[in-house]
């Protein structure tokens, strides 16, 4: 199974420069972090969904991660409920009881609405993150990061990371299968500390092959004169197109509008209860 690998496609999202997508992304993260305004979140989810639809990412590519995300999301919401069942009421300054559970725990409409907002935050980012991973060529990404003023050595580190994630992933699978074939139990049957020690039987071979890989790759780069000069040129570099500039301007406009809508009443929460 291929996971977060770049695949060449002919879509709008693929043609955008890596930096444009990164910019979109960072703004998206900041806005989604700051706002609790349900209307803003809804628009952001719609855009994210469109992006992943356009990037033609396949469901199998990210089904596993999506399930993990759903798991964390549900735990977080349940946790918030059990630690402070009435935080929604405090935030929205009203209380509508729906269902009494036990003791001091009553489900209120405000708490449900707050939880909905917390969950929506997840959906604003994750789909576009997948789209970014499958639609961005690591080399082009490094070039365009350097193009906007990031040091090229730093850009190269990120590009190497994105490039080697699939390799490390297949290493991981191979080594895990080999260890399980030798009878090392990796599943939930063992105790936590025992399992932790056993994961070292996977991590250690991976770490070794990675240390070798670091030697090989850094030698190869040094032989080609990497790091000698302050600047370098890029094979995969492409100047920002008109579409890129349009997207950047739209992103800024949207973020400004979203933040204004969120904060103009002095409160980051959208309150339908008043």
């Amino acid at each position: 199974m291929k996971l977060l690998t770049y695949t060449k496609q002919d879509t709008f999202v693929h043609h955008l420069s890596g930096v444009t997508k990164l910019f979109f992304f960072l703004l998206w993260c900041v806005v989604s972090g700051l706002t609790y305004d349900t209307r803003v979140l809804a628009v952001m989810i719609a855009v994210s969904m469109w992006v992943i639809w356009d990037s033609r990412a396949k469901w199998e590519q990210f089904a596993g991660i999506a399930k993990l995300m759903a798991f964390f999301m549900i735990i977080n919401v349940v946790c918030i409920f059990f630690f402070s069942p009435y935080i929604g009421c405090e935030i929205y300054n009203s209380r509508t009881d729906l269902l009494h559970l036990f003791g001091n725990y009553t489900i209120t409409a405000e708490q449900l609405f707050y939880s909905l907002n917390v969950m929506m935050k997840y959906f604003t980012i994750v789909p576009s993150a997948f789209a970014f991973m499958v639609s961005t060529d690591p080399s082009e990404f490094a070039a365009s990061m350097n193009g906007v003023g990031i040091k090229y050595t730093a850009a190269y580190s990120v590009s190497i990371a994105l490039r080697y994630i699939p390799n490390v992933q297949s290493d991981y699978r191979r080594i895990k299968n080999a260890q399980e074939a030798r009878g090392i139990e990796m599943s939930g049957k063992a105790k936590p500390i025992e399992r932790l020690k056993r994961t070292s039987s996977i991590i250690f071979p991976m770490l070794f092959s990675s240390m070798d890989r670091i030697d090989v790759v850094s030698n190869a780069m040094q032989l080609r004169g990497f790091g000698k000069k302050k600047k370098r040129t890029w094979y995969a570099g492409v100047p920002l197109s008109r579409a890129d500039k349009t997207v950047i301007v739209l992103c800024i406009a949207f973020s400004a509008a979203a933040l204004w809508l969120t904060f103009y009443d002095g409160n980051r929460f959208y309150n339908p209860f008043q």
Partner: protein
Amino acid sequence: MKNNNVRNVVAIGIGTALYVVLSFIYIPLGAIPNTGLMPSLSIIAFFSAVFGPVVGAAIGLIGQLIYSLITGGVWWSWLFPMAIPAIAIGLFKGKYNVKEGGFGGRQIAVFNIAQVIGNAIAWAFLAPVLDILIYSEPANKVFLQGIGAFVGDIIVMGVLGTILLAAYSKVSGKSAGLKKED
């Protein structure tokens, strides 16, 4: 000097890839919800001890950023503290002698003291405070999660980090082939 620079660039890249892939292994502890053992943290501890604070911190920040982007959005409050244990461990890089094969009792003690202090600052204090400031989450929940993360992280770095460093030190030091006789 130049030589090290290129190696560090590559080490950050490949270390980050390792961190991201291993982040998907997660061992729940059960006692505190939403916290557990994350073996991937041992990668940060390892790279900090071998390559120094900059490499370790960069792996923590970039790796956690990529991982959290693909699993559910960035919690900025839990991202930035990632760098602190790495810096704490990396500051004493010169003392560990990992590559020379000298990672033994004293070095293990220094490594573990550094990681416990770094993790304490990062998770028991900084992350919950940022959580309250940025996300207005309930205080008792985030401090409990912070303590949970602190305990989980010192276990991972202490057990797994020490095992990895000691084993790697043993193997990589062998090429020198010389042992001091008593």
